[in-house]
């Protein structure tokens, strides 16, 4: 029997390292009912802005609300798709251009559930979780990020 899940932390300080992603993947090799993993990674872009180029994004969040919301999304997506596993990590603080700031990871017996659930999670996280990115510009200015 599944025990009741409670909100878990999704935030990591600074970038999400490729090594930690590899570790997360490797941790699933003992789950031998998994046939497919779907992963989304958000990476900080060096966008051109008025007055300069983005060099990093500084993330802040309304943490308690974000964790509650992430938990709510997590439960809804678990209820909708036959998933074996789901992991969500988002950066807080400064993440430099080229570094990973979002890691969404779903696993299921057959590929379709993992792929669809991962996409839905990414959309919902960007839309519903109270996190803000401030793009730091190489002229020492900054611009509040806007999600498309």
């Amino acid at each position, binding site marked *: 029997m599944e025990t009741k899940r409670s909100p878990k932390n999704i935030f990591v300080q600074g970038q999400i390292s490729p090594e930690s992603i590899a570790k997360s993947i490797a941790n699933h090799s003992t789950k031998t009912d998994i046939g497919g993993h779907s992963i989304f990674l*958000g990476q900080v872009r060096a966008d051109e802005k008025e007055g300069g180029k983005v060099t990093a994004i500084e*993330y*802040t*969040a*309304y943490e*308690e*609300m974000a964790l*509650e919301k992430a938990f709510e999304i997590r439960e809804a997506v678990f209820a909708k798709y036959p998933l074996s596993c789901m992991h969500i990590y*988002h950066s807080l603080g400064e993440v430099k251009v080229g570094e990973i*700031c*979002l890691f969404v990871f779903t696993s299921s017996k057959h590929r379709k559930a993992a792929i669809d659930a991962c996409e839905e999670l*990414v959309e919902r*996280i*960007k*839309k*519903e*979780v*109270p*996190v*803000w*990115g*401030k793009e730091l510009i190489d002229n020492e200015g900054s611009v*509040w*990020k*806007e*999600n498309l």
Partner: protein
Amino acid sequence: MPKLEPMTPTSIHVIAFGMIAEKIKTKELVLEYMPDTEVLLGYLYQQFPDLKQTKFSIALNKKMVVGKTFIPVGAEVALLPPFSGG
């Protein structure tokens, strides 16, 4: 549980994030109690005219609210600019 220990029941605890915190130049305000979000918005626009040009939402006790909403005594009121995570 809202973190309200130092406040009297007649005050209202407002926290602000992102661009809103920048515009009002603080992340936290303790105001006289106000009965609903419309009264609160009226006060905020009066006090911080810059906010009129800024899109933001209000959360009461970590739930988004839309339109005129009663503010429970002791509520944590959050001013949230559009999310831009990821």
